[in-house]
């Protein structure tokens, strides 16, 4: 494998996604879960732009990345609002503790 700029970017995207997945597995704080999702989405956005550049259609890659940014922002905003309400109601942000499903 040669270390061309595109290969380096792809390596970085995969590493960023890996760190994000690790964070999703080990994080229990609700606000930090939203943060880890942000890290994952950054990897996805970079991958979309890279795919657009490799296919010679950077405009399409950028437009899909813009869509992902909008959706990601909405997810973050709603997730944070939910975290605030969960903290007010349950007094904790620990995800396993707020799970009331039994059986």
């Amino acid at each position, binding site marked *: 494998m040669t270390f061309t700029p595109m290969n380096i970017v792809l390596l970085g995207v995969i590493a960023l996604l890996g760190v994000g997945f690790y964070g999703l597995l080990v994080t229990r704080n609700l606000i930090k879960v939203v943060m880890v999702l942000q890290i994952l989405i*950054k990897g996805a956005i970079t991958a979309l732009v890279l795919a657009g550049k490799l296919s010679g259609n950077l405009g399409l890659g950028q437009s899909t990345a813009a869509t992902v940014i909008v959706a990601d922002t909405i997810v973050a905003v709603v997730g944070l609002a939910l975290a605030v309400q969960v903290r007010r109601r349950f007094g904790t942000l620990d995800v396993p503790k707020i799970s009331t499903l039994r059986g």
Partner: protein
Amino acid sequence: MESITFGLFFLGAIFFAYRAIVSKRILSATIYLACISALVSAVLYRLGAAEVAVMELSVVAGLVNVLLVYAVSVVGDDAFDPPSVVPKPLAFVIVGLIVVLLGWTAFPAVSVYFERGSTTLAVALWQSRVLDVWIQIALIFSGVMGVLGLLSEKTPGKTEEFQP
């Protein structure tokens, strides 16, 4: 030279991402997240996606981080970090497997160059994907309405307290 630049940007982003995950304080993690956004924006700009880089920097590094700081100020920066439910060695193995599979499927695609004709962002967004733009606008409005409903102090109707 460009490879080194990209490598340095990504090394920084990955370092900050790891620090954001292991950080005990949420506020520190928020600052690390802003640093990741700045570095990813630089990568996007170097890739030629200037518009998306600006969006990433302004929306994600700006708006989302402000919202995170607001959420921290509301809930308090007690930022307990309880031990993970998943054992860390198992998490490392799972993530390693995911990374290997991603690399195995993605790296062959980098060497495949196919020309489909270049379009600008304006054409792609406002002509080819105009329906997506309308959906995004609807999504933004629904998100704003959802947040207003969630952050309202009074809940109509049932106000039963949670009994653990």
